[in-house]
């Protein structure tokens, strides 16, 4: 009974991270909505405006974290939902792989976009 001292077991980590990202998302998502619909109207968004925001390193990092958290939270949520519906074996592995790839792609693309917005290219 003495092995397995360090790491989380799979289910537990995913569950905990889902909650932690959720807690984080509440804050940033609310901020995001306010920023882009109430403070600045979405209709008035221009590249220059976007760039002005993105150039701020703090904002940039927040948005990247927002993206990572959102992607993880969303895709992990989807994965769990599928697993809960009884996904098994290879199917499950395939779904996990596809979702992970999609997530990585999404994040990579997102970071690229953000970098472009900040004008650091």
């Amino acid at each position, binding site marked *: *009974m003495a092995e*397995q*001292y*360090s*790491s*989380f*077991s*799979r*289910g*537990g*980590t*995913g*569950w*905990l991270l889902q909650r932690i990202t959720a807690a984080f998302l509440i804050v940033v998502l609310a901020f995001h909505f306010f920023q882009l619909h109430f403070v600045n109207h979405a209709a008035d968004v221009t590249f220059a405006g976007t760039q002005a925001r993105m150039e701020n390193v703090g904002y940039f990092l927040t948005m990247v974290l927002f993206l990572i958290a959102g992607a993880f939270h969303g895709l992990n949520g989807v994965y769990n939902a599928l*697993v*809960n*519906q*009884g996904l098994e074996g290879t199917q499950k592995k395939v779904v996990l792989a596809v979702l992970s790839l999609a997530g990585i792609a999404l994040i990579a693309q997102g970071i690229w976009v953000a970098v472009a917005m900040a004008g650091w290219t």
Partner: protein
Amino acid sequence: MSTQQEQPQEPESQEAPEDPEMRGTESPQQERLKEKEQGLAQEEAVDESDLEGETVHLKVFRYDPEVEGKQEPRFDDFYVPFEKGMTVLDAVMYARDEFDSSLTFRHSCRQAVCGSDAFFVNGKQQLGCKTQISELKQPVRIEPLPHQEVVKDLVVDMDHFYDQMHAVEPYFQQEELPDGDLEEQRQSRENREKVKMSTRCIWCAACMSSCNIAAGDNEYLGPAAINKAYRFAMDEREDEEIKEHRLRIVEQEHGVWRCQTQFSCTEVCPKDIPLTEHIQELKREAVKKNLKFW
């Protein structure tokens, strides 16, 4: 029904019960259930006196793999004379004894302790013997528990449920016992109070039947088995190591993480066990245990 104790205090004693457990103790759980109960009663109750001398219309699910005409499931109608205090179980027993002796269902104690007669009554998992006909809308639709295979009429296959119950090592495992003749292990009142609700499970499977997750994932331990694990994991008489072992069982793939806090298990449990609460507590315990060694 909001009580910490279904049973009469004790049939035997000549005196009034002394200990608080024998009386009603108020708990949030109880209050919640009381409200639930009242809500239900207002919604559905038919004034009992209106039913006096009337018949109750039952629609009962019928299926038998062997009998022609019953292989394709159907609903049969029964009209049973109403009597004051009649329960769903009384009604189906009447229908069986008077109209159709092949009507099949499990039942035994008639007092909500044997857990044999959980049915799907008007769309909710309930114990037949604990459900008053007068509180139900008519016609009363009675079906076998959903999510379990039907063996015949209202009888479902319970094997899977039993397997899940057995999967959590549902037995006390403390090896080291107090020395000396007739020495019991000590347990604080608080600790017994903590596990009390969890020990009241009668294995009726209503909870498991109501859980969508259990329906989707056959290997999911299900609320009753997790509650059983809780009963031991939280019992201070077992050593810390055994508790860890137990947590490891429930935090497996198909264990506590599967629970999506749907609460339907808690809502249908005839013994008012706060199942969701217990499951959530185990999730936190499991996370805590894992964090400890990080």
